[in-house]
Every structure is written in C-alpha cells, then in structure tokens.
C-alpha cells in the first residue's frame, strides 16, 4: 500500500486538482454520497478512509430517516479514489459529483 502523503500534499492537491507525490498521483475529488436510510447507521465514510488509502473531509451533510447525503472531498491516489467510489456504490450508496449532472439536454 502506498504511504499516505503528508497533510500539506493534500492542500496542494486541492488547489491543483492532482499532483504527484512519490510514486502516486495525488488527486482530489469532490463528491456527494447519497445513502438510503437503512445505510445511515453504518459508518460508511469512516470505512472508506480505513479500507482505502484516502483522506475524507466532510463539508456538509444531513441524515434523515429516509436517506442521508454528505458532500465531501476525497484525496489520495487516483486509483484508490476510484476504487473507494466503486466500493461505496457496491455497498448501496449513490456517488455523484458535487456539481450534479453536467450532461444537459
């Protein structure tokens, strides 16, 4: 597993979108996680940070009995970010860009 870069690298990634640190390309993705109500009890974001070599930073969130959503930044190696997003989807979360769909009719 790639060693996690120091915190300053994440700030640079945030500004630049992506950069290299050692052997990995540091990227940051701003996503919205939407989860059905029954998944809200599970510490999904905590699991993301532990199963994968990424740093998660929640900016806004709300949980209701019907469903929950969280707007967060995910920083790390690009492949790890893609893997964690795929995993979250497999676990039942909807993962979308914070901007919403950009393909318009």
């Amino acid at each position, binding site marked *: 597993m790639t060693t996690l870069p120091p915190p300053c690298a994440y700030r640079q990634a945030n500004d630049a979108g992506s950069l290299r640190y050692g052997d990995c390309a540091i990227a940051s993705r701003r996503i919205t996680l939407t989860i059905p109500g029954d998944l809200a009890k599970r510490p999904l974001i905590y699991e993301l940070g532990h199963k994968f070599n990424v740093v998660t930073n929640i900016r806004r969130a709300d949980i209701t009995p019907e469903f929950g959503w969280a707007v967060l*930044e995910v920083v790390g190696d690009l492949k790890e970010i893609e893997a964690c997003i795929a995993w979250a989807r497999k676990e039942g979360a909807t993962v979308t*860009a914070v*901007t919403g*769909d950009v*393909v318009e009719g």
Partner: protein
Amino acid sequence: MPYVSGLQCRECGRAYPAEPIYVCDFCFGPLEVKYDFDRIKKATSRQKIQDGPRTIWRYDDLLPVSREKAINIGAGMTPLLKADNLGRELGLNNLWIKNDAVNPTYSFKDRVVSVASTKALEFGFGTLACASTGNLAGAVAAHGAKARMRTLVFIPADLETGKIIGAAIYGPTVVAVRGTYDDVNRLCSELSDSRHWAFVNINMRPYYSEGSKTLGFEVAEQLGWKAPDHIIVPVASGSLLTKVWKGLHEFAALGLIGDVRTRMHIAQAAGCAPVANAFNAGQTHTRPVLPKTVAKSLAIGNPADGYYSIKAVRESNGSAFAVPEAEVADGIRLLAQTEGIFTETAGGVVISTLRHLAREGVIKPNEQAVALITGNGLKTQEAVVKYAVPLHIDPTVESFDAQVNGKFKD
C-alpha cells in the same frame, strides 16, 4: 459588468471575486452572481428596458455582463401568446404560452449560452465547451461560431444523428464519448478542472444560469409589467425554475413590477422525476435516479439545482407533477392542435402538467397562467411519429371521396 459585486456561495454565504469559478472552496456549495442592487435601481427603469434591443440584452443591467460585446444571435423576446383554444379545452380563461421554441437554435438554451459565451470572452477564454445530448449542444455550437471561438461539444457516442447534425453544422469539434452518461459527466468535470476552457455549465455556471432570468423578465414585461398567478416550468437541472423565480423577485425589488404572488409548478416526466418525487414526498433534497424517459432534454438524474427548485416551489406555494410517459406525446399533440405550436417532449411534459393542474383545480379558471415552452418539436419528431398518418389515395376525386367518406363535400 458594472453592477456585479462578485460571487457568493448559495450555502454558506462566503464571498468570492467574479472569476470563472463555480464551487465554494469551503463547503462545496454552488456559487451565484451577486449584484449591487442599489446602483441597478438608479440605472434601470421600465422605459430603459423598453428602449433596449429586442433580445435578452435589453435586461443587461441585471445580467453579469454588458451588452456592448455580447455574443448575440438574437436570443430572447420570444412570443407570449394568449392560448384561448387550449384554455377552452382545459377550462382556463387566462392561459398564455411563452414560446421559446422559436429562439435562434430553437430552444431556450440560446439565452443562457449567449450570456455564458459573452462572459467567457470577457474572461479571455479561447475555447467554449459543453456536454450535451441536444439543445445545449446546438446553442453552444452556434454561439461559439458567432464568437469565433474554438468550440467543443461532448456527446454520448450513441446520440441520434439528427441531434448531432443540430450541433455539428456550426462547425465545432464534436467529441463522441464511448461510455455511459456517468462517464461523460465525469470526463467533462475532469476536463473543466484541468483545461483552460469555458465549459458553459460547469466553470461558467454562475454566469450561464443568469441568462434564464430573462425568461421571467420577459413574461413579466409582456404581461404589462406584472407577474402571473402561475408559471409551469419544465425541470431538468432545476436551474431554469430557480432563475425565473429569482428574476421575478429582482424585478419586484427594483419596483419594476408589484409583489410576486406567482405559484411555480414543476413539470417532469415520470421516467426521470427526482425533483417532483422529492417535492411530493415532502423532502428537501433529491435522490439521484437513472433517467428512463422519452423527454430526453429533461433527463438529468442528479439535478444540480434540485434542492433550490424545491425550495422555490415551496416558497411560492406551488406544486410538482410527474407526467406519465405515455402522456408526453399527447401534450405535444394537444398544444399543436389547439394553438399551432409544435413543441418538443419537454413542452409535452409542460402541457400535460398544465392539464393535470387544471383538472385538479390547482389553477382556477380565471387565474393567469403561463406555460413555458422551451424547445422546438422538430428536435424530437420521433416521439410523435404515431400522429403522422396521412390518407393514401389514388389520383382521382372518387378515390379521395371514398377515403374521406363524404367529409369534405362542400
């Protein structure tokens, strides 16, 4: 841009300079243009607007860029028509159709793209871009040509040829992406972060979306400087509805019209109705859906302005309806056969929603209602092919009479 004071986050309120940025660094909320209304109030008036050009640019005091170097192919000041025949059919005596289907590239997108492309040039961008399956692609390609900018239009690789032609004819680079809509979404988000391009509805979104206010401005001006009792709006991302609502309130704040008591109504198709579903379930936020609808121009499963459009409709005491898919084409037919206006599937959704609202008594017979028709029917002919049933006859009067069974004897 004499009256723009900057950008502001719609969630946390943080202020930003007026640059090509669209997301708050702190909370990732969307950014919106802020104006100096004290100065606008002194500068604008009904007379000044009426003396302006017969395009969206008559309202440039309330737009984020001046009309002096506008990329203008004639968007706006589309007809607002009294719909007596349709009204009679639905039991409504004061029904109006705002026909944006006759904009230069045949949809309301000309409004937003005219503003976005003008602002992009002001920012010094050399490339205009978008991701689209139809109307936006055509508008961006046309305005890019007029602006003499390099233009890229990203489309899903399986897009119908007719829609591709509608953009390609203006000479952009059309990039057909092999993959899902999700893939196109993700790719374009990544490109907008890494290239110095003006993606009209990504990094230019705060400016782009302001163009939609002009629909609301025009409705108010054309009704004699007043807001109607009801506006029925087709909802894709939700941006149009929120900006029409915002535009009416801006007019009222400037004293150009009286108080706004308009009820806003969301019109979506059942196959992709995240906003209507959330509204009717009493929720504040939308849940992403996988679009499966004949109304392709409304097929946004994760609407960027879903939360804000729900908020606006609740504030207005409005409503939301998800039209059954089978009724979309009938809405197109009804409008065409009563008012002679051929709209695309989004318009069919609006008319079917209007019919529902009239039947349910949400719109009373004498209340003034405006239905927004945002795109032209020639773009979605495949949805109404079942109505193309000519009579086939031999070249004789007898054959004709036999077919029509004496119907046209006079």
